[in-house]
């Protein structure tokens, strides 16, 4: 391999891509999808309630309210020094609701002397005020050391970790962005990379390159271009869509292994076709094989379909990306997922070497 030659070819391809509408389209289409999801599908946010607390003595009431709210609501407390300031915050809509807590409140509650707690509501309907007012009864019972008349246990109707629960936990936007990430990798590896390689051979410009370099130099340069596109566009898509993976090593490993596998598929495709028009015809098949199963992981399909989809690299990559993004083992089976992608890579590169050796002979 000749580094100078590889670098020169890669730089030429990067510059040339700016003038090639097909490549620009293939690169920008997935990024455009990401932007559309951003605008059209805002994330479902947890309700947030701001409570103005006016207390002269320390009180555990905010802590108890937060415990009762759990993860269902984001509670924020603004502590002020007087009842007037509490009312001012609510009037100014700086707080959804206000609580005026008298001196010695916690001790009085514990002693059962029924102190007066004033709830300051804004005019009109305030969901935050209703929520806090209804939560106060349980909180005060807890502070008084009383047991609730019954224990309320809330359960989700769906069994944990199935397809629907993944979407409901992750949100449709984030799920679709992760799917788009796989589409982006597939477009670069199975469409852009084969185009720039096939075009060199179809237009015989490769003959001029081979006057000084080798086939390995040319192919390595094209793969480098694909990797550069991926290295730029994958973080760009995540940045544009405000997606930060919780388990970065797992997420990155899934992206890298999928990229290597799909680049193998792209090179194999380029070695089998003779022209860019043939490539345009045939590249849609591997693209569909990779991208369609990605979205199947979000559907509750019959088990045999799920098993079949589990053999696809796109499906396994999606499972890893979801787990890597959430930082939870929502799907699990990471070794199997990497194993399936590695098996695809092994078969693809073996076929590629066989095809190239036939071509050289």
């Amino acid at each position, binding site marked *: 391999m000749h580094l100078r030659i590889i670098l020169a070819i890669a730089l*030429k391809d990067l*510059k040339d891509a700016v003038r090639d509408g097909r490549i620009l389209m293939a690169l920008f289409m997935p990024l455009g999808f990401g932007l559309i999801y951003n605008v059209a599908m805002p994330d479902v946010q947890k309700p947030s309630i701001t409570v103005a607390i006016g207390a002269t003595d320390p009180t555990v009431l905010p802590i108890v309210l937060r415990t009762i709210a759990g993860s269902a609501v984001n509670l924020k407390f603004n502590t002020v020094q007087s009842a007037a300031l509490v009312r001012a915050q609510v009037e100014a809509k700086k707080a959804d609701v206000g609580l005026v807590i008298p001196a010695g409140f916690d001790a009085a509650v514990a002693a059962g002397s029924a102190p007066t707690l004033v709830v300051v509501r804004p005019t009109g309907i305030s969901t935050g005020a209703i929520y806090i007012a209804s939560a106060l009864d349980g909180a005060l019972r807890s502070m008084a050391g009383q047991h609730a008349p019954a224990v309320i246990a809330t359960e989700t109707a769906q069994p944990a970790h199935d397809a629907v629960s993944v979407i409901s936990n992750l949100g449709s936007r984030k799920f679709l962005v992760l799917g788009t990430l796989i589409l982006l990798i597939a477009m670069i590896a199975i469409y852009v990379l084969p185009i720039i390689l096939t075009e060199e051979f179809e237009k015989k410009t490769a003959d*001029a390159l081979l006057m000084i370099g080798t086939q390995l130099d040319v192919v390595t340069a094209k793969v480098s271009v694909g990797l550069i596109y991926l290295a730029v566009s994958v973080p760009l898509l995540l940045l544009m869509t405000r997606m930060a993976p919780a388990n970065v090593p797992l997420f990155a490993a899934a992206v890298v292994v999928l990229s290597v596998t799909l680049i193998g598929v792209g090179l194999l495709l380029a070695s089998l076709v003779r022209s860019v028009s043939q490539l345009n015809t045939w590249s849609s098949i591997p693209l569909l094989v990779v991208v369609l199963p990605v979205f199947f992981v979000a559907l509750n399909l019959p088990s045999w379909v799920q098993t079949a989809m589990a053999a696809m690299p796109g499906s396994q990559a999606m499972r890893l990306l979801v787990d890597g993004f959430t930082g939870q083992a929502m799907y699990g089976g990471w070794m199997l997922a990497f194993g399936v992608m590695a098996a695809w890579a092994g078969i693809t590169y073996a076929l590629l070497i066989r095809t190239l050796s036939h071509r050289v002979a």
Partner: protein
Amino acid sequence: MATMAVITEWTRPAVPAPREAAPPMIAVDGLIKRYGQVKAVDGISFTVARGEIFSLLGHNGAGKTTTIRMLTCQTRPTSGTAEVGGFNCVEQPERIKPRINLVSQNQNLYERMSGRENLAFFASLYGTPPARVAELMRIVGMTEAAGRRVKTYSGGMKQRLLIARALVNQPEVLFLDEPTAGLDPASAKEVRTLIKDLSRTGTTVFLTTHYMEEADQLSDRVAFLAHGKIIALDTPRELKLRFGHPTAKVLFDDRSETTITLASSDDATRMASWMRDAKVLTVHSQEGTLEDVFIALAGRAL
């Protein structure tokens, strides 16, 4: 159209002779290339001296391009040996490639890039200083069009750019595969002038062409290839003398004319008779052509 500059100086780095003094620049011995059952090249042998213009002539499919591909290390021969600059094409392609270049019959340029960008790219591949790009553009008379995209160039301009690209590494041996195919007469003439100029600078030129007149004008020696075999190899003059049929066009005093074959004793007798009778106004001798030679050897015109 800008006129091409005549190449008057050629500063190629000194390359030590790999073998004894004045070895051939190209040496081919018993070269065979098979594609399945088809023998594209069938045991050809020849040498080309340093600075020589050597032409390989033949029909389509005669094996010309396959021969060039083997000599430029792009195709492995089935058997036989091919050496360029004293280096073996199969075993030492890394030594040969920096010393040679090729003008392909396909106008294989990057059409979305400008002429200057094309040359700059190949200069970077060969590690040639960027300053050489402007010099080459000047040599092929394309300075004004250097910034235009190649897809806007005419066929002749593309061909000149291909020649400039092939000179980017200052090759010792330049292979030209049908360099004037499809060009208009003016462009073809410019390309031929460029080839002649190159040869004067000491570059060895290996040319394949369909055009007999072109081979005749340019070549020091010519080889005829038919069905993968060399059927004749010599200087154009020698080939024409040996295989051609020189003729003479005779104009009579009654304004009628006829053509006689000079090698024919019958025609010589008739000519002597006409001269004796003072019937002849003018006689124009015509040398045999390479096309005559090829028809005589291979049985049909190219």
